[in-house]
């Protein structure tokens, strides 16, 4: 889509991200829920049992502050929680404990390229339960099954100003935000539904439409594109845009009306009386500020300075994700030449991962085995050409390159064995030998090619050349 002109729109995002605490926001149930049976990581608190009371997770508050600091927001000295009241089957109490009047942080910004996107507020709240709509989607299912394992997982909500001007910019903003959160160690991008977005979209200063509950970057771009085009064609047909909330269906890529704005529930916020106010002291905030992890931009610069790689390489490594840059640095500990590591990582490893459609963490690629590949090239076990071939198998299978070479018998032939092959080729191609001797030096290339074909990738081209020339001289 490089050349296409972005469609102009006014977009504000509300981003919900699951914070990677070990326990839930208001109870001690585990947040490691991806592989659990339904309703097995629940207690009377997250199930909204009568008589239960919430108790706030310190770590979630600290994570929220860290995010606020990274976004240059003003951290509030005293925060409180509120009850946001609305009835819905995914809400165990039919209210959500969130922050209303006093969020954790206000203001701030994030640069996307050279465009500044303002941050309105950052606050923490509890995730609702997960609904399974049986026999249809949200609008036509026969019944609903409820799994409360997710209920109470801590979320941070980051609200932007309506500063985003295109769907592409929205995507870039989210990518950058996600990368920052990952670097802050507050968020695990691999978790199921760990990033969810509500988007407010309007065009030409028209009415604002809210698209709810979009999961993941790709869907955000899809949903926003659909919505902008939908609004554009409505306007072109002379129709007016209605203020409403729309639901995005990831399967069909289509948004549809959920409710009109005037049908919205009045949230009737009150202070959450079961929780105390929390002081975010100078000491606490200062301490977190002092121990802020390295942010992506800082990391890109450091890799350039420390490892002597190009800015282009560093950019790719860091932007691929925190795990990739940690992988890179680990490789540099194991292998002496950091530039070679970067070359091979950026050019071949990433290409193979992309080809397999795998992320680094989904693959079994590890620094120890990746550097093994480089070492085997250095010590002459395999040729560069073979290494480029081998990396595909390596990424696919996760097996150590050394093992792959052994299994497939791919190691370079010892010079003695190679000399025998050369001898055979030379004696079988008398015409080429004659040509060479009569001054057609190009005939040597033909012979080299024949040898290489016969041994496949088990010989370095330079060695073969030397041996062929030696044989031609000797004969």
């Amino acid at each position: 889509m490089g050349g296409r002109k972005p469609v102009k729109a006014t977009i504000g995002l509300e981003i919900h991200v699951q914070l990677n605490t070990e326990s839930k926001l208001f109870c001690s149930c585990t947040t490691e829920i991806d592989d659990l049976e339904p309703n097995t990581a629940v207690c009377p608190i997250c199930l909204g049992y009568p008589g239960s009371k919430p108790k706030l997770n310190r770590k979630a508050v600290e994570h929220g502050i860290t995010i606020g600091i990274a976004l240059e927001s003003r951290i509030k000295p005293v925060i409180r929680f509120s009850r946001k009241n609305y009835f819905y089957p995914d809400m165990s109490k039919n209210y959500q404990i969130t922050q209303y009047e006093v969020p954790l942080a206000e203001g701030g910004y994030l640069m996307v390229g050279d465009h500044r996107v303002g941050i309105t507020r950052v606050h923490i709240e509890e995730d609702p339960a997960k609904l399974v709509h049986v026999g249809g989607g949200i609008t036509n299912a026969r019944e609903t099954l409820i799994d409360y394992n997710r209920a109470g997982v801590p979320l941070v909500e980051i609200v932007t100003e309506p500063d985003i001007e295109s769907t592409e910019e929205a995507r870039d903003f989210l990518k950058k935000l996600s990368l920052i959160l990952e670097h802050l160690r507050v968020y695990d991008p691999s978790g199921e539904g760990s990033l969810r977005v509500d988007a407010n979209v309007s065009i030409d200063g028209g009415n604002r439409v809210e698209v709810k509950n979009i999961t993941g970057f790709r869907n955000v771009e899809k949903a926003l594109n659909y919505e902008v085009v939908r609004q554009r064609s409505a306007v072109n047909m002379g129709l007016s845009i209605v203020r409403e909330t729309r639901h995005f269906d990831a399967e069909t890529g289509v948004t549809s009306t959920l409710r009109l704005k005037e049908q919205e529930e009045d949230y009737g916020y009150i202070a959450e009386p079961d929780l105390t106010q929390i002081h975010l002291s100078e000491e606490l905030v200062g301490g977190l500020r002092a121990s802020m992890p390295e942010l992506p931009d800082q990391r890109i610069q450091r890799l350039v300075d420390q490892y002597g790689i190009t800015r282009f390489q560093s950019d790719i490594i860091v932007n691929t994700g925190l795990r990739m840059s940690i992988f890179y640095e680990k490789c540099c500990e194991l292998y002496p030449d950091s530039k070679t590591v970067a070359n091979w990582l950026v050019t071949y490893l990433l290409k193979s991962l992309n080809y397999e459609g795998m992320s680094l963490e989904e693959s079994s690629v590890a620094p120890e085995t990746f550097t093994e590949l480089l070492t085997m090239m250095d010590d002459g076990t395999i040729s560069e050409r073979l290494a480029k071939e081998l990396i595909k198998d390596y990424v696919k299978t996760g097996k150590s390159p050394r093992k792959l070479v052994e299994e497939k018998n791919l190691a370079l032939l010892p010079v003695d064995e190679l000399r025998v092959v050369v001898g055979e080729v030379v004696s079988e191609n008398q015409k080429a030998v004659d040509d060479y001797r009569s001054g057609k030096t190009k005939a040597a290339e033909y012979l080299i090619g024949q040898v290489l074909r016969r041994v496949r990738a088990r010989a370095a081209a330079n060695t073969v050349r030397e041996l062929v020339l030696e044989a031609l001289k000797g004969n």
Partner: protein
Amino acid sequence: MNSLKRAKELDQEYHFMNAFADSLDSGEGRLKGYTVSVKDNVCVKGVQSTAGSKVLEGYVPPFDATVIAKCRAEGASILGKTTQDEFGFGTFNVNTPFNKPLNPHDPERSTGGSSGGAACITAVADFPHLAISESTGGSISCPASWCGVVGVTPTYGRVSRWGLIDYANSLDKIGVMGKTVKEAALLLSVISGPDKYDSTVLDTPVPDYTELESVEELKVGVPKEYYGEGINSDVEKTIWSTLKKLESKGAKLIDVSLPHTKYALSSYYIIAMAEASTNLSKFSGLRYGLQEHIEGDFNQYFSKIRTLGFGDESKRRVMLGTFTRMAGYRDAYYLKALKVRTKVIEDFKHAFEAVDVLAAPTMPVVAPRFDEIEELEPIQHYMMDILTVAPNLAGIPMVSVPCGTSEDMPVGLHLMADHLQEHTMLRAAWEVENL
């Protein structure tokens, strides 16, 4: 005869229980030998706990409230659940589909509420018994006064609320009732103190409240707003005669004023209803309590359960509470009430600079008859709490101690003290008891 069997006999006559424990377990500790009854809104593991509401019928809590765990640890036998107004919404213990208790001094009269069952059994038990009860706006003091027992409401946060089915969380206090100040003090000593499950509990050390002795030169404040208009003159006479006796024993009576008293009632009801209306949202026919065949969309199903499960007063309070926190009205009602609450607290703080306790009638009248109650409009029900809501709104401790009769019905003297001054307050109550 064991006390479970005896309690069941008495219940036949007075209707104070909603559920009995299967059996009585007892152990060693400060409550050894005592049977403890529990207001129905305090969860007891394995015993149906409804908070007096049909919407929680069949709900068997999977855990003990902290106060119950503490009682068990001190050797108490848990008897079962005492009846109450639905979720504590009432002053006469008539707002419930379950048992409506009868006043032991006159079965045609109310026990008071909302902890009516607790006061009733405390009055009639002829075995060692103590009651766990609960107050939001006067639900311990009122029935204690009308049934002639001692009822103690501690400072907000003195006792853990973990396991208490919420009415209004910023006002709810679990407290105690007993036949004597000393017995009530014993149970309060056991249940007070920190708890990791309640964020709003105070960690101030708990004294042994049973160490009771005379307070030298007790300074008793007499708030003018709690006497005169609206107070039955015979009730007031009984109170004054007690105060005079106290004075003759060396106490000093000091006139004080709590100028915002008049506004406490509205402030209290607005805050209580706003919080209550959100607390009751969770009752929607999923997970526990009343559950019907699931049909229709969620709005239809939730509405069906709530319409069926809530009584008239609950519906009224949920609607009023919803109103007071609606966008557009929230500042004028909910937030305003929270600010007026600050003024009410300041009144008390100011008064306690000069006095140890404040003394007033607990209730403006003696227990009314059921036929009289039927004639009352909802607002007149609320007005009945005029003397108890202010200290409840301020979260200060209070005790109603029997101090004589009027029309042959018990009258309670209400003693109120500054935050966390339970010990002084109980010593003053003990003094009154021994007059």
